[in-house]
């Protein structure tokens, strides 16, 4: 394995991180909107969201990705590997995020909501000023956990030809007939990324537990 090979894997790392961040940034607000739709119990829509989340949580990302990549062009929507990858990641992570947000919404104390109502706050203001800041705090550990899960499923994107860390490593392994070294480089790249997120999650949980104990 040469220096150029390591550079190729690093380029893959840029792709992995970019796609993961894009998926996370788009998936977070969509997950929140889905959760609010269910929480507000909007007729029909809430049921559709429930079924969507249930199906998406059960669907392996590979299967979803292959479905999008091959079936969308079939019905006339042109889609490249990168857009299919982002769409699959967003659809997948939004379903999981929805569950995390919804759990916080369900645990949100009703009396605060009513207090805000009684001082004359409108629905939008109530949500922005009272509900959102608090559910962001309580959802944070779950959301960070979901982010680390998302990064761990990104190697699947290689199936449609996205050259991420794993794909770059596989390619080098096939060229040099010695797959172990590039795989170990790949592990050395993934592990710190995921480890940072896992530590972040533990740190947030500890800090919140301490804040609760102090209160």
């Amino acid at each position, binding site marked *: 394995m040469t220096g150029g090979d390591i550079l190729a894997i690093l380029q893959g790392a840029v792709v992995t991180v970019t796609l993961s961040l894009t998926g996370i940034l788009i998936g977070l607000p969509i997950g929140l909107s889905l959760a609010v739709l269910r929480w507000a119990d909007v007729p029909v829509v809430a049921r559709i969201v429930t079924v969507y989340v*249930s*199906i998406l*949580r*059960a*669907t*392996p*990302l*590979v*299967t*979803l990705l*292959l*479905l999008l990549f*091959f*079936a969308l062009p*079939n*019905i006339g929507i042109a889609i490249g590997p990168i857009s299919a990858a982002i769409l699959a990641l967003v659809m997948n992570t939004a379903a999981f995020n929805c569950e995390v947000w919804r759990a916080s919404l369900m645990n949100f104390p009703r009396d605060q909501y009513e207090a805000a109502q009684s001082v004359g706050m409108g629905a939008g203001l109530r949500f922005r000023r009272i509900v959102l800041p608090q559910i962001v705090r309580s959802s944070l550990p779950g959301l960070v956990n979901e982010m680390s899960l998302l*990064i*761990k*499923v*990104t*190697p*699947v994107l290689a*199936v449609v030809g996205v050259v991420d*860390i*794993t794909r770059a*490593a*596989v390619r080098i*392994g096939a060229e040099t007939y*010695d*797959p*172990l070294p590039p*795989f170990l480089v*790949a*592990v050395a790249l*993934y*592990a*710190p990324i*995921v*480890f940072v997120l*896992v530590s972040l999650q533990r740190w947030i949980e500890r800090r919140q537990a301490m804040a609760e104990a102090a209160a």
Partner: protein
Amino acid sequence: MIHDFGIVWSERNLLLSGLGNTTILSVLSAAAALLIAFVLTPALMSKQQWLAGIVRGFVDGMRCVPFLLFAYIVYYGLPSVGLRLDNWTSGLVALTIYNAAYMAEILRGAWAAQPREPIEAGIAFGFSNLGLFRRIVLPPLLLAAGPVIGNQMIQIIKDSAFLTIIALPELTHAASSIQSRHYVPFAAFITAVFLYWGLCLVIEAGVSSIDRLAMARR
């Protein structure tokens, strides 16, 4: 569109054998992972620092590596060090070892949350070692960990789909093969999605019946 589903229906035997293989893979590796976890968890909670440290390193290490990469290492990487496994063995080994780490962490969490009193009462009644574990520790532990183990089962089913890349004939692989031969991508993959959904609903039903049992015992 109806015609596409007709093609998928004519290939139902392939899909069903894929579903069967996915189920076999998931159940076998979940059971094996749980058994390994029962060995790892006491080590994880051991007072022997070095032992707890080694197992902690393994568990945290597995949680930081993507499963797909791990499967690649087992299938393509291990032959470099002289260990060649066929795709079924690699798939099973990868799924089992990877998920044993998660199961160990799940059991540790449930174990730590168990009240001490019944165990001390059990000791006072003369239970010891295996008897104590089997009759006093294990039943409430499994009931408490049930839902989380169920979630992990769903995770295992989804991980097993990744094994399509090492040409293991599971459900996603079957759907891919139908799509590549007949070019019916939507019908083939959406059928697979619904079959996965069905599997997960079965597990969720199992979990809620365990929950009811736990409630009844309380």
